[in-house]
């Protein structure tokens, strides 16, 4: 952990350290001992390689770690020669970790290969949600459910976040201005299409409505932290294609698409 320097600013090097991943600096050329290596041999292995501990391997799998501390404890117990596996200390924990890791691997495989595993000329997954108007306390439930579902499909977290933000804003708009609405999401391997349709009052001037800061929101909406005229601009910012059609007195249909493999459009 590196603290900020006196001026409370982060230097470039500190910044770099924050971004650095363990994988980039870890030792890959490891010295290991097999589980049946005798303790009497371990001392010379540690000394000759100038190391304070080493992974213990059995049948190609790591089963534990043996350290200088284990060695000293062994000596203090009398130092009767035996295989390292009888002395190493974290065997159980390690196996547990391995099981967890294995389960995570399986989960990740299932998720990220979901589309690849489907055999068809075209695969599309549809999600449908219903929004009840004027129920502000429920605002965001659709976005939240969609976010979870997209994550399960193994879509990149940054893309999921973008889809969720756009849906949340659209959901809030439906809640403010309409009696009810529906959200239809089509997920294809390379694109997420979101359509939000409501039967509400409609937008008189669509060109104005997409301008940042333009708002017709009533006070009760502003008190809830929305209605500052950033909803549609935010949605536009999250999307690649953005299309909105509205008829006063009938309702509004918003269509956006977000590529699943694209680079982040914003810095967020």
């Amino acid at each position, binding site marked *: 952990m590196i603290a900020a320097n006196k001026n*409370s600013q982060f230097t470039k090097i500190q910044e770099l350290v924050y971004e650095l991943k363990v994988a980039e600096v870890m030792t890959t050329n490891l010295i290991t001992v097999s589980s049946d290596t005798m303790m009497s041999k371990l001392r010379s292995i540690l000394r000759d390689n100038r190391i304070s501990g080493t992974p213990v391997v059995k049948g190609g799998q790591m089963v534990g770690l043996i350290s200088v501390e284990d060695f000293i404890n062994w000596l203090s117990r009398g130092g009767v020669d035996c295989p390292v596996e009888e002395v190493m200390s974290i065997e159980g924990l390690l196996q547990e970790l391995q099981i967890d890791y294995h389960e995570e691997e399986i989960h990740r495989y299932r998720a990220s290969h979901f589309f690849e595993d489907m055999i068809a000329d075209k695969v599309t997954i549809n999600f449908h949600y219903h929004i009840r108007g004027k129920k502000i306390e429920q605002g965001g439930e659709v976005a*939240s459910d969609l*976010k979870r579902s997209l994550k399960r499909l193994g879509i990149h977290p940054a893309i999921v976040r973008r889809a969720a933000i756009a849906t949340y*804003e659209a959901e809030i708009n439906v809640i403010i201005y309409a009696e009810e609405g529906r959200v239809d999401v089509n997920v294809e391997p390379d694109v997420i299409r979101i359509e939000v349709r409501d039967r509400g009052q409609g937008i008189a001037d669509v060109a104005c409505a997409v301008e940042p800061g333009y708002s017709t929101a009533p006070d009760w909406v502003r008190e809830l932290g929305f209605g500052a005229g950033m909803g549609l601009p935010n949605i536009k910012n999250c999307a690649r294609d953005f299309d909105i059609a509205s008829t006063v007195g009938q309702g509004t249909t918003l269509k956006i698409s977000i590529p699943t493999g694209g680079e982040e459009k914003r810095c967020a």
Partner: protein
Amino acid sequence: MKLSEIIGILQAEVLYGEDLDRIEIKQACGSDLMSDVLCYSMQGSLLLTGLTNPQAVRTAEISEISAVCFVRGKKPPAETVDLARKNDIPLLLSKYSMYIACGKLYSAGVLGCDDRCE
């Protein structure tokens, strides 16, 4: 910075949250306008806000904000805390005003979301 350190700086009360040492806050943002938060906040941030209704937590959930701190001693209603518990998003309560809370964190080295974009 660890969330537990931030709690110290803001002299905050923990309304919900467990094991706060494990949460690393990368940057912070302060706003009562949820659309602004959705627009420029970054994943892993702390949100400082005077807005205590559940939408503050919902916004945090949707934009992957790691923790929310209510400023000026405003206690959120029970449904806000419930939603935070459901999504495991720590909630803090600080007596400091928005300006002071942001200033204290910034001078302690917690950058803003826009700083991180530059």
